[in-house]
């Protein structure tokens, strides 16, 4: 069974009075442990696909199946729980919570999950922090970190709940080339060792080189 299955997915929305067709019938299957890049220029529909897979948006037509479940049949509470249990997010602008330090930001999804005790949470967080190499920055607030360090925190936060899929929306867009490569290398290592499925969007060809599989989008359609 695929980790993610998109069947003839369409997504349109209104921009003022104009109807914009963001996706025009996408069918796509992503396997468990995949390391997949969704490539394409701005406006091609990369983020829309990620939003649909991430259960933070619903398709206008077609079905999105994540780990065997059709997401459009789920209500808000169930979708929220689904995101908490199955998905991890890495955002283009890092989206760390500014008032929490590195440790607390990474621990945050575990607190929402409320399944682990304090000790187990600590073990889990410390293991991930070491994995992303931020053990000497535990008490730092996001504002005290560089862009690369912030994205490492975001990766650690996405990984800490051991999700089925990690979605990364242009994870290197706000980083310099060297840092971008380091972040992708880190994601690749985690994919290799933890077997976590990674789906990331990018329009940077150098970044695409890291992907095991690339889906090219243009005007809301897969072109390869």
């Amino acid at each position, binding site marked *: 069974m695929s980790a993610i299955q998109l069947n003839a997915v369409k997504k349109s929305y209104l921009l003022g009075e104009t109807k914009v067709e963001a996706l025009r019938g996408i069918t796509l299957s992503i396997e468990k442990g995949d390391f997949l890049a969704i490539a394409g220029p701005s406006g091609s529909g990369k983020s829309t696909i*990620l939003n649909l897979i991430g259960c933070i948006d619903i398709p206008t037509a077609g079905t999105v199946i994540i780990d065997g479940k059709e997401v459009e049949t789920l209500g808000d509470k169930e979708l929220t729980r689904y995101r908490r249990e199955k998905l991890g997010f890495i955002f283009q602008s890092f989206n760390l*919570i500014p008032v929490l330090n590195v440790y607390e930001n990474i621990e945050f*999804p575990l607190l929402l999950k409320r399944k682990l005790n304090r000790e187990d949470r600590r073990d889990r967080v410390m293991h991930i922090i070491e994995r992303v190499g931020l053990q000497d920055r535990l008490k730092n607030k996001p504002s005290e970190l560089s862009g690369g360090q912030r994205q490492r925190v975001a990766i650690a936060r996405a990984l800490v709940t051991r999700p089925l899929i990690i979605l990364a929306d242009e994870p290197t867009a706000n980083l310099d080339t060297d840092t971008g490569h380091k972040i992708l290398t880190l994601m690749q290592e985690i994919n290799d060792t933890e077997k976590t499925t990674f789906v990331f969007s990018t329009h940077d060809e150098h970044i695409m080189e890291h992907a095991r599989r690339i889906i090219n989008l243009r005007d809301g359609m897969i072109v390869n």
Partner: protein
Amino acid sequence: MLIIIKLAVRTILRRKSRMLAIGILVFLGTMLLVFGQTFALSAAKASKQSIIDNFTGDFIIYSASSQEKPSPFSFTTPLPVIQNIDQVRQTLQDMPEVDVFVAYAQNYAIISVKRAEKAIEIPFIFYAVEPDNYNRAFKNSNISSGSFFGLDETRATPQQGILISLAQNERYKNFYDVEITVGEELTLLGLTPGGSINAVKTRLVGIFEPIYYKNVFDYINFTDMTTYSELYNFTGVTTDSLPDELNTIFSSTSEDDIFSLGTEEDFAVLDFSQLESQALSGYTMIAVKLKDHSMLEQVRTRFDQSTLNIKTAPWDEASGFFAQIADTLQAIIYAAVGLIFLIVTFIIMNTLIINIVERTAEIGTMRALGGEKGFIRNLFLTETLILNGAFAIGGIIISLLLIIIFGQSGIPLPDIVSQYLVGGGNLPLTLSLSPFTQALLVILLVSVLATLYPIRVATKILPLKAMN
């Protein structure tokens, strides 16, 4: 829950200046509510005490035929006389709940004084009192000169005459160019219930200064009950001064007995010079002090249901406007606090909306990471409760300190305010729980109300916003 508190506290600290503005308003509002309410409650208590102790007792008994309420503070038409005063007195004496009672009357008269062979007539508003009884029940004046009907001169029986207030004498001086001195003989002129004018020679026995509610009580003077009864024909002859033969005749109950026992010889023994007059009635009010104020309604009900042909008015009805001053003050404080908290509610609401707009991505991220709507709702509610709670507790502590500092010695008030509010002097503050609980409840209510709409806005933020 700990993470919500952590997020709330740090967000408040991160947005210090904006939150401080809200906090200061909450602090001031809480202080106004706690201190203001304590002030108003203390004023109400002090005013009640002052009125009961010095003017009305717990309640006033008056004639059932009266159309007006009795009031020691306002002088309108004199009330009708209580007809069966002896029965009422007896009933009061038999009641274990009654501490002390004093019968008196209010009325008007004219004082006629001679200056340069010319009679000058000046108005005289007075309480007609039994000096010793009144003095025992109410200590509401200081004697400036003379005495309170000779009572402070260790006389066996009170002296007859009148007392005027210092301010009244000043007014006589200013408006009539007449200054009365203690010991001066003068004539009282009064209109009797029968419509005739009576004149009674009397003298000024004392000049006093009211201690409480000076601004009103300055206009009120005193006369003794005997002088009053003579002035208004409420007099009779004491049985002690009548010959035994006549007492026997008058104590008979049938007309036959009276006319068969009484002969011309019997009446011939009457020596008018030996007769002593006594006040028969003329009392219009009886102020009753109870041993326990909480028994007021119970005792009043017994009187109201009796066949004594009387009515009762509790102290607050009898003192009218003065009893309401503290209540009015309390209402003003409530209105001011209400206005402040209404403003605070809108400011908090507005600030939270701005915060939410600024934190859209953060809220969207929390939702994307699996935070439920309830989490977002609790986060904003906790922020508001912590902020408001902290500043409210600050306001409560400062108010408590002020109440403790001023509690015993009392708050010094300008004399005019003090006179109207509590009858005079400092206002001692009484610590009571209700202003504190009210403050906490109001803060809780404001916090919840101010957060309702912002929470609605925040929980509508889609996780999709995290991506933007």
